[in-house]
């Protein structure tokens, strides 16, 4: 098993022009790849004798819209009394990450017995598109369809980018953070029309457990920053 730090330096030295950075956190290597070089780097990672990442484990979309935003302003509310203080605005935006959407790839090498995580941020929110890695790993076929279905991210060069998880005729991309948990439409059988009809949801969205971020001093270093992230 290659040491993850060795792998990190190897990737740094080989691909410094193609990547934003490569970090090791929690014993795992994350490489942030520039979108225009994704296919180049993937091809080398698969074929080069140092890496041999022959198996694509997973492709996953992430929507960073609410990253680092909590529902409950704990400090403020306790000064004035107790309240649920839950905000329910789905459109609020976080500035914690450079881009709203990212696609994350997990790679595994069976011969070298090591793993790597690649992340591609999608800079242009008007044109959510990344290159498809299907030519490199055929297993990307369904994974990319899933990301497209749930996040609306398009994959350039994918031959069959259909929805996969949601119902036939579904509108919207449900795993985006601005898509409500209860959905937008509900289905019922209409006895008069003798068919199933879709209507806007009739219930209110509720937050049962507010999302709370506490700065736990066990996980902070002396500078007051999160120790694992660095």
């Amino acid at each position, binding site marked *: 098993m290659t040491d993850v730090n060795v792998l990190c330096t190897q990737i740094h030295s080989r691909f410094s022009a193609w990547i934003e950075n490569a970090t090791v956190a929690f014993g*795992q290597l994350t490489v942030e790849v520039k979108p225009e070089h994704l296919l180049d780097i993937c091809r080398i990672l698969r074929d080069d004798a140092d890496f041999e990442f022959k198996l694509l484990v997973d492709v996953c979309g992430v*929507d960073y819209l609410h990253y680092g935003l909590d529902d409950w302003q704990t400090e403020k509310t306790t000064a004035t009394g107790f309240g649920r203080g839950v905000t329910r605005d789905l459109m609020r935006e976080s500035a914690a990450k450079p881009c709203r959407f990212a696609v994350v790839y997990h790679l595994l090498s069976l011969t070298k017995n090591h793993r790597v995580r690649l992340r591609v941020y999608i800079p242009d929110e008007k044109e959510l598109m990344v290159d498809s890695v299907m030519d490199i790993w055929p297993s990307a076929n369904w994974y990319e369809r899933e990301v497209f279905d749930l996040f609306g991210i398009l994959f350039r060069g994918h031959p069959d980018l259909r929805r996969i998880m949601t119902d036939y005729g579904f509108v919207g991309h449900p795993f985006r953070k601005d898509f409500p948990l209860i959905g937008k439409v509900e289905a019922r059988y209409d006895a008069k029309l003798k068919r199933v009809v879709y209507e806007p949801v009739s219930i209110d969205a509720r937050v049962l457990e507010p*999302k709370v971020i506490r700065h736990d001093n066990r996980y902070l270093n002396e500078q007051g920053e999160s120790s694992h992230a660095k």
Partner: protein
Amino acid sequence: MQNNENSISGVTADQTPEIRNYVFNFGPQHPAAHGVLRLILEVDGETIVRADPHVGLLHRATEKLAENKPFNHTIGYMDRLDYVSMMCNEHGYVLAIEKLLGITPPLRAQYIRVMFDEITRILNHLLWLAAHSLDNGGMAVFLYCFREREDLLDCYEAVSGARMHATYYRPGGVYRDLPDKMPQFKPSKWHNAKEVAKLNDNRQGSLLDFIWDFTERFPGLVDEYESLLTNNRIWKQRTVDIGIISPERAIALGFTGPMLRGSGVAWDLRKKQPYEVYDKMDFDIPVGTNGDCYDRYLVRVNEMRQSNRIIRQCVEWLRKNPGPVMIDDYKIAPPPREEMKISMEALIHHFKNMTEGYNVPEGEAYAAVEHPKGEFGVYLVSDGANKPYRLKVRAAGFPHLAGLNELIRGHMIADVVAVLSSLDIVFGEIDR
């Protein structure tokens, strides 16, 4: 005369008849579809030209639900992913949280987890064997397998109170220690005292005694299944050389677990990237040679024997080594109830733990376990809150089903069922 002939077939001499492939649905309501799979098959005569699986009929957005709940509330949803190997799903999720929190469960909890992972593996493979043989026309094995599953589900029940959806693994250990007494049957109007005494015969001692008794019997029972199938002429005709996949192609398609080992790749996370106490266990990785349905059958049957070995090693260790099964950190694990009666701090910890949960430090982690079906991975992104920011479940069966088209192209319609069930797919996991 010639004219008459032509009018019967509807084709005139100068026209070539139009031949189209026949396209039809398999499922979503079909007993051999193993859940809700809609498979669109294009056939040329009896030969499959194309198979297009439509999944998502059981999509419950588990990952989205998890983003709206404190970490511990989602453990129960993990059981419902692959609902025939419940505790292995929990294991992957719990490992990801533990990685982010930087905690390790006590050694006894690790042994209990390994033991229940292997019990789960046997449970899964028994159900798979039952369904696979039934799909290929053997009813008897189905009944035998369910007889043994009953005993193992009793173990689930004894330890967690639930026969399937256990929610037993928690970040920092397991919910509670193994019970000292195995629950027993009581006489009813269906079973008189004499019958009940016979049923309770191996339930006199602790749970560990019951499991030990099971492991004594189980290899003989696997022999029984094998005597019905392994050299059975009909069984071999249905499975040998059906759905062959080469090792290179299996890797390219993202196959893991028995699907990969059936093609001869000795890849097992329990050996290669050991978690918990698998590095202390003595077991082998069975591999196949041809990568056909028959080899995958042999691999899984052999895995049951290996799991049996691991369980015995765990039982021996657990008998000798009592100890805590949960970490001693009340920020993560709730304090014991006795302490809550006398300690204000424990009460506060309990209240915060049950309402708000615990905060997980910012970062991302991927944890994978060798699930009975392959690699089950959980990718967890935390922004420092009490809920996951993003949870992605890497279902083992997902790439297997994606490869179905390649596996059955060129085979007969009857082989669809054999290949499909040899994938060992469960839709709770694929659709999530």
